[in-house]
């Protein structure tokens, strides 16, 4: 851990070879939508950052999070060419701690997808196998960390968008407790579910970045101070009693990892989560409803795409949205507008919010039986670009392990647990709200027994 960060601190001394290394990888994986290692951020802090664990480190920022003077495209034609006039709170805190944003990473348009193939502005490949996707929607952030272009990156997690790409790319991906990290500067998709998260090469760095970016913020009325309970060691790990539908490689790693955790002294207890099969329904009802409202702001008037000609303001708005949004975004806006229509609200939206309460109660019970809950992050490893074995609908169903944490607000961490046919498999550990410490503890102990594999071709000396 110390070694990893020390290597990265040479970044400023060896900037020419660093840039050559990052660009060589970039040609293969397309993690960034914009890349500028010479970017000079402005700190708002007068305190020296020398002792900060991130001082001098470069980092990537998902392109739906604002960094002043960098583009802010959300992977959409709607916002192509837009630069941000301000910086997100989470990014500013890292800058104040001495870290340097070097680029904006690719994503599924407005964060909607599980492959990053829904980006209108670039194609991102998985560094482990460039014929495969990096996952999504924070695919660029996961890929750039896995390839060693940066030691960490920020992403956003609405239904698994940090954890799933972290699993596909073999890095750590933290979805913090809802509200503990300010969303100021994050382009809103589903406000009641999403949070800015961390993708990093080590547990220690994930924790260090989280400690820096968390905290209440006057610019985000939903932000909260993290108030964890008294620290005590994790003893019991809850797992699902009947777990089916996993790809064979994922199943093997999952079983092996449970054996490893038992050897490390943890007690593995089987728990029931009867509401799991309704989580995806509740999640997509709420997410698309909120998306249809949040994306109403993209109307071509104040910024973004404007049609060459429009008869009147309504025509302008319709033309801008029709030309600016891709198919997945349009599908979700349609779906969200439908479930919110008068007459349908109780049947879908209100029902989903009640199911959300039922899921939360299930987890309250589970965390009386166990200290943390463990499952695979995603039922498969990274799939191929254009793979037709998983339709867009099936990809949504596969979000079932990750969406629960967004519905309950609980923190989740995907950690690399091994390789299946040369592709990374991540496991997800969940804890009660504010108990991120338990996630780091389990992932740290696991890494001692099974150190995460480095992606072939990655290096920290940048000599290529």
């Amino acid at each position: 851990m110390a070694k990893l960060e020390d290597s990265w601190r040479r970044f400023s001394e060896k900037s020419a070879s660093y840039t050559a290394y990052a660009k060589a990888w970039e040609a293969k994986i397309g993690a960034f939508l914009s890349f500028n290692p010479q970017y000079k951020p402005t700190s708002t802090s007068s305190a020296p950052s020398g002792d900060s664990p991130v001082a001098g480190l470069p980092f990537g920022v998902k392109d739906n999070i604002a960094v002043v003077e960098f583009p802010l495209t959300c992977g959409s034609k709607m916002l192509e060419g837009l630069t941000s006039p301000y910086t997100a709170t989470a990014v500013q805190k890292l800058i104040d701690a001495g870290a340097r944003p070097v680029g904006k990473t690719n994503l599924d348009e407005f964060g909607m997808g599980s492959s990053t193939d829904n980006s209108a502005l670039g194609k991102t490949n998985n560094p482990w196998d460039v014929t495969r996707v990096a996952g999504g929607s924070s695919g660029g952030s996961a890929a750039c960390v896995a390839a060693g272009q940066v030691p960490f990156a920020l992403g956003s997690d609405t239904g698994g968008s940090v954890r799933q790409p972290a699993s596909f790319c073999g890095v750590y991906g933290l979805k913090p407790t809802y509200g503990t990290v300010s969303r100021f500067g994050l382009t809103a998709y589903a406000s009641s579910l999403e949070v800015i998260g961390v993708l990093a090469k080590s547990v220690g760095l994930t924790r260090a970045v989280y400690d820096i970016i968390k905290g209440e913020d006057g610019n985000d009325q939903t932000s909260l101070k993290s108030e964890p309970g008294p620290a005590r060691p994790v003893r019991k790990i809850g797992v699902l009693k009947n777990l089916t539908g996993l790809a064979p490689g994922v199943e093997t790693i999952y079983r092996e990892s449970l054996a490893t955790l038992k050897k490390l002294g943890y007690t593995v207890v089987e728990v029931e989560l009867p509401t799991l099969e309704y989580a995806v329904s509740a999640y997509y009802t709420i997410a698309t409803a909120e998306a249809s409202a949040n994306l109403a702001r993209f109307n071509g008037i104040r910024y973004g795409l404007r049609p060459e000609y429009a008869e009147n303001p309504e025509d302008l708005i319709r033309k801008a949205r029709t030309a600016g949004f891709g198919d997945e975004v349009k599908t979700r806006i349609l779906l969200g507008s439908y479930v919110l229509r008068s007459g349908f609200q109780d049947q879908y939206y209100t029902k989903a919010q009640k199911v959300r309460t039922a899921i939360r109660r299930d987890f309250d019970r589970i965390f009386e039986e166990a200290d943390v809950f463990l499952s695979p992050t995603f039922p498969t490893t990274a799939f191929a670009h254009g793979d037709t074995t998983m339709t867009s609908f099936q990809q949504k169903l596969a979000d079932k392990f990750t969406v629960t944490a967004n519905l309950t607000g609980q923190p989740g961490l995907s950690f690399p647990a091994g390789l299946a046919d040369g592709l990374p498999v991540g496991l997800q550990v969940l804890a009660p709200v504010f108990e991120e410490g338990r996630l780091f503890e389990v992932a740290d102990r696991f890494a001692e027994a099974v150190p995460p594999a480095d992606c072939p071709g990655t290096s920290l000396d940048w000599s290529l």
Partner: protein
Amino acid sequence: MKHIMDIRELEITAELAQIAFTPAELERLGREVTQMVSYFEKMKEVDTDGLEPTTHAFVKANRVRPDTVTPSTLADAALERAPELEDRFIVIPNVL
């Protein structure tokens, strides 16, 4: 399950969403919308009697802040991003 919901329902929804679709597009995207809406029906199986809806992960209390003027330097930079500007006004086509 119906292959696709009533096309008129989709047209009304598209109108509300302020997006124009060709009939072919509406048929293509409508198919997934229909599939998802049918899937949402599954939630009927859950007994939610007596459960309050969760609107946010945490709602402690309504949050208020002091009603004071705080300076912002963002206005000019934000206006500069408008596609068409005249002085400090954003230009749009005929309103009347």
